């Protein structure tokens, strides 16, 4: 008779099976996550470049150079503006739409499906399309804005150094908001109805119900989603790579693209590794908070 202990861990046979099941994951993890991460840290301490035969340890020199480099400051600032702006917009807008979708009405499934379209379109295709849409003279964006009299002269979304980052952020927002909507919607749907019933019977108005029931109930889901989206947005690459390549100048350069260019166009892999490590350091705070939340939810 086999041990039928459900989730129990009685018996080393079950423990051994559990570990065996995890072996493929461990292999992938070690080869593609653990080893590369350690290698990157090691590389960041060298001046490794595949086009030069000699590599030596220069220790923290890469980081000293990074910290004093004005381009790096600009790129970091861009990335912070990008991350903050996109995430806030996605969550405010996403929450509103999720609230709307949380009601029972005919055709809800259709709306839910159509809303996911931006997530399905490959980033490179979206970037090309947005490039066309942002054309100052022939693009529909400017045409639309002129028609409703918001602007009267053509706006150069992708050539104006002050606007280009915003234009890219809009595209990322477009791509990212479906995930936020669906995640928050899933969280809203998990809230038990009787909580609302009781509040309604007690005479609570809709704003009281929102603040005292909806928001607290959705908090765990929202925090996990917020941290995850923040990290993903910070690491974003494809949008700027295809849309502007970081230009004009460095006005829309994000740190992931900067690292990519340093590594695969300038072939300064040691320096690029240092950029990667600094990205990771910046992310430590949200990552730590995220993992703490996860740990709390597991136990």
């Amino acid at each position, binding site marked *: 008779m086999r041990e*039928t202990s*459900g*989730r*129990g*861990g009685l018996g080393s046979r*079950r*423990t051994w099976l559990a570990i065996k099941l*995890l072996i*493929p*994951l461990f292999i*992938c*993890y070690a*080869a*593609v*996550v653990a*080893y*590369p*991460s350690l*290698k*990157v840290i090691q*590389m960041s301490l060298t001046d490794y470049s595949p086009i030069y035969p000699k590599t030596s340890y220069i220790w923290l020199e890469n980081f000293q150079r990074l910290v004093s480099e004005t381009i790096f400051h600009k790129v970091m600032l861009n990335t912070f503006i990008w991350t903050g702006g996109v995430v806030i917009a996605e969550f405010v807008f996403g929450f509103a*739409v999720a609230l*709307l979708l949380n009601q029972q*009405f005919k055709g809800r499934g259709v709306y839910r499906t*159509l*809303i*996911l379209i*931006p997530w*399905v*379109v*490959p*980033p*490179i295709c979206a970037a*090309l*399309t947005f490039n*066309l849409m942002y054309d100052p003279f*022939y693009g*529909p964006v400017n045409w639309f804005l002129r028609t409703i009299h918001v602007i009267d002269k053509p706006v150069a979304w992708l050539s104006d150094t002050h606007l280009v980052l915003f234009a890219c952020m809009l595209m990322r927002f*477009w791509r990212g908001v479906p995930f936020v909507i*669906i*995640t928050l*919607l*899933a969280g809203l749907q998990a809230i038990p109805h009787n909580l609302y019933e009781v509040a309604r019977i007690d005479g609570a108005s809709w704003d009281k119900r929102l603040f005292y029931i909806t928001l607290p109930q959705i908090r765990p*889901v929202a925090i*996990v*989603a917020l941290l995850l989206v923040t*990290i993903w947005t910070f690491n974003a690459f*494809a949008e700027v*790579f*295809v849309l502007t390549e970081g230009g004009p100048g460095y006005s829309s350069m994000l740190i*992931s693209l900067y690292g990519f260019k340093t*590594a*695969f166009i300038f072939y300064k*892999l040691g320096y690029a*590794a240092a950029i*990667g490590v600094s*990205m990771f350091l910046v992310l430590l705070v949200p*990552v730590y908070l995220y993992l703490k939340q*996860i*740990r709390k939810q597991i136990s």
Partner: protein
Amino acid sequence: MLSFTRLGQRLRRKLCLVLTYIALTIVVVLLASPFVWMLGGSFKKLTEMFALPPRIIPLDPTMDNYGIVFYETAFVRCFFNSFQVAGLTVLFSVIIATLSAYSLSRFRFKGNPEVCVAVVAAQMIPGIVRIIPLFVMLHRFHLTDSLWGVIVSYTTFSLPFCTWMLKGYFDSIPPELEQAAMVDGCTELGALRRVLLPVCAPAIAAVSLFAFIVAWNELMLARALLSSEEKYTLAVHLSHFAADEAPYWGMLMAFSVLITIPSLVFFAYLQKYIVTGLTGGAIKG
């Protein structure tokens, strides 16, 4: 007998509903418009591409752009490359994620929470940090220009989210189901296959779609790793055209539409499972 206030309430509720429909329709129109623009652009001649006023549907549509994509680019070969890569990524991701999630969900062993946290932490790593050492590693073994390197990498990129989602879904299903099977003499793996998996179809579907999208759309790693043209994936090939001095927009739009279609098909086929799969899974933790 309807009182006046109750009539007011019903009117208010109807008004809310109408406003909801209007608001959601506006949202959907905004979100879908770039895709619609892409679709329209793929049928436009160059003259209409840059015409005023901008029209979604061209007055003089043409299939030339699609002709150029099929006959003058390496689209077909790249399609097969991408298909191989995505297909194998989905297969490996689903298998490994299912086994891992089963282990993490149904077995209590020392270090279980730690493994969960490590799986989740893997998602945080910036793309750059992943690909630079991968590139160096594969370069040393002269394996850079290989689709297998890409497949294994993509599998590992999608594994954390997939494992997490499946584990959450497994957690929400009572273990009594498998226990019943095991009482009848089934092994754990047998119970997994016969009892748990059919119940988890929505989550498997959601996980497959996620892995597919990761593999089908990914650009950074493929671009860095693949150097010979016959190994290019669709995304890489398109990115080279996009970097041209004077890009041929009609062709780029047609190419884009063609890249998007498989994702859309896969998505439409599985869409009813996605929200259910997500709901029971990663969200509730």
